[in-house]
């Protein structure tokens, strides 16, 4: 069977996942092209992981169609899984085994000969800068190091498509940057990346295109830049007032910029020019405890689209 190389790597139409009466994924349409880095952005419970598990061919779809590499997970799950690397939300490493053994035994699931697993493991551990830990047990490693082992392990089958479910959740900033750097290099090598995240900065750093998901549905799709341009003015002025007074103080800044948003801890003013908006706030005599001008981000897009902030 020949497969069109320009065809989408993943194609989902009206894709639904139900667990009993609960609809986790509610009719989404997604196309991921070869070589791109594609993100699912959304809060916990948006349906990102369920989508990933269907794409990973472990969770059967409830409705709609799903094709990966042009193949149907219902009939060709095994062949598809052989070409996919998986970085699950929770590490699935065996604590009592060494880093190297974890990688070798995982490679064996793909029927890669032991000696070849060993060769690839040492190459991949170099790639994630863990060569010196090859013989170390998993148990004492930090969360960031375990994550790097998991990523190295997912690559042992030389996958064309890498699925990363919240790759950096729970990691400190430095560990996140190391991971982002490695994922960027993978993308440069031509590996298609599909990831879920609830971090805006992660999506902006890593994704060529992304969809914003909320309650099982896709609420927006595009590149990070497009989404920001479409759904949010260029700059955001963040004002902090004494705790509990945001609602009344917000009236003082009414009409400044395109619109404003009152959050529990801040008042946001969306504007094309943050500095002049701040000047007007000051001119009106409204004195916030602190003020900050920043570029608008995906977080603002999410807030705009759903009326809720992204991270709980």
């Amino acid at each position, binding site marked *: 069977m020949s497969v069109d190389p320009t065809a989408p790597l993943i194609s989902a139409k009206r894709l639904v996942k139900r667990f009993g009466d609960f609809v986790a994924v509610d009719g989404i349409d997604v196309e991921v092209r070869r070589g791109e880095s594609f993100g699912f952005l959304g809060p916990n419970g948006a349906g990102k992981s369920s989508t990933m598990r269907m794409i990973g061919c*472990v969770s059967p779809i409830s409705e709609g169609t799903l094709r990966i590499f042009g193949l149907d997970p219902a009939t060709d799950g095994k062949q598809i899984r*052989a070409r996919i690397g*998986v970085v*699950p939300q929770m590490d*699935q490493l*065996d604590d009592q085994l060494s880093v190297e053994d974890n990688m*070798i035994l995982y490679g*064996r699931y*793909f*029927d890669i000969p032991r000696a070849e697993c060993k060769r690839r493991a040492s190459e991949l551990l170099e790639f994630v800068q863990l060569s010196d830990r090859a013989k170390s047990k998993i148990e004492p490693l930090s969360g960031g190091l375990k994550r790097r082992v998991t990523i190295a392990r997912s690559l042992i089958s030389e996958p064309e498509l890498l699925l990363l479910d919240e790759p950096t959740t729970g990691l400190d900033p430095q560990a996140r940057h190391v991971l982002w750097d490695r994922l960027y290099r993978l993308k440069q090598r031509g590996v298609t990346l599909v990831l879920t995240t609830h971090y805006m900065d992660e999506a902006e750093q890593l994704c060529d295109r992304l969809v914003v998901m909320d309650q099982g549905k896709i609420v927006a799709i595009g590149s990070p830049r497009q989404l920001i341009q479409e759904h949010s003015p260029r700059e955001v002025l963040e004002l902090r007032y004494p705790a509990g007074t945001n609602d009344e103080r917000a009236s003082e800044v009414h009409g400044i910029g395109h619109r404003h948003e009152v959050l529990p801890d801040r008042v946001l003013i969306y504007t094309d020019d943050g500095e002049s908006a701040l000047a007007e706030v000051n001119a009106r005599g409204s004195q916030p405890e602190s003020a900050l001008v920043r570029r608008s981000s995906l977080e603002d897009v999410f807030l705009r689209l759903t009326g809720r902030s992204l991270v709980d």
Partner: protein
Amino acid sequence: MSTPATIRAWESHFTLYRTIWKSSMLGAVVQPLLFLAGMGLGVGALIDRGDNSERLLDGLTYFEFLAPGLLATTAMMVCSNEAMWPVMGGFKWMRGFHAQAGSPLSPGQVSGGLTLWHATKALISVTGVAAVLALFAETRSFGLLLAIPFGTLTGVAFAAPLTAWSASRERENSFPAINRFIIMPLFLFGGAFYPVSQLPDSMESIAKVTPLWHGVELCRGAVHGRLGVGQAVVHVAVLAGLALIGWLAARITFARKLAA
């Protein structure tokens, strides 16, 4: 050259075992040895002095009676524990089964690899006990070689249904109760330490339908060369039936958990 998928799933369990085999083996062999010494020599001395002990034990000394049964009890102990916490861990803690299911392995191959591993673990432990029994003149016989597969089968007859059960649970809270209310009573009343004919009639009939009793009878009969073919077929059929039902049930519970 490609390796069958079930074997590849099995390899992960064996890889882990290779790092802990010494302590694991020691545990599997030392416990039966303690029973052999404590009961076989101590209690045995008392029993063998009794007037009709020869008749009750079918012409065997107590040591001869007790020792082969330990092949079956060891398999039961080792396999039942292997089929509880480690199975829960594969889904919930280390999540190794999820890792396997994300690879080309199917849920059926994941559970098949585990059942094959349980058989391996039973074989290793039973062989260890058999090696110990070979040290004693009373139990040194070619029948030990036959008792090894019988003991292994006993282990799988426990491991497979328990694996199916463990895979259907979200929490491990039933495991201590299984040990206390199923495994321990079987150990005490399954015919390993005295003929079940010594039990009141109602308990005797219960004992005779438990898998351990069939395993003990097989191992004892094999070691002392007094196993009738008809009997052997019945015992093996019961154990193999349990193993088969357990294996099929585990395929279902694994698929439910891994392919939700």
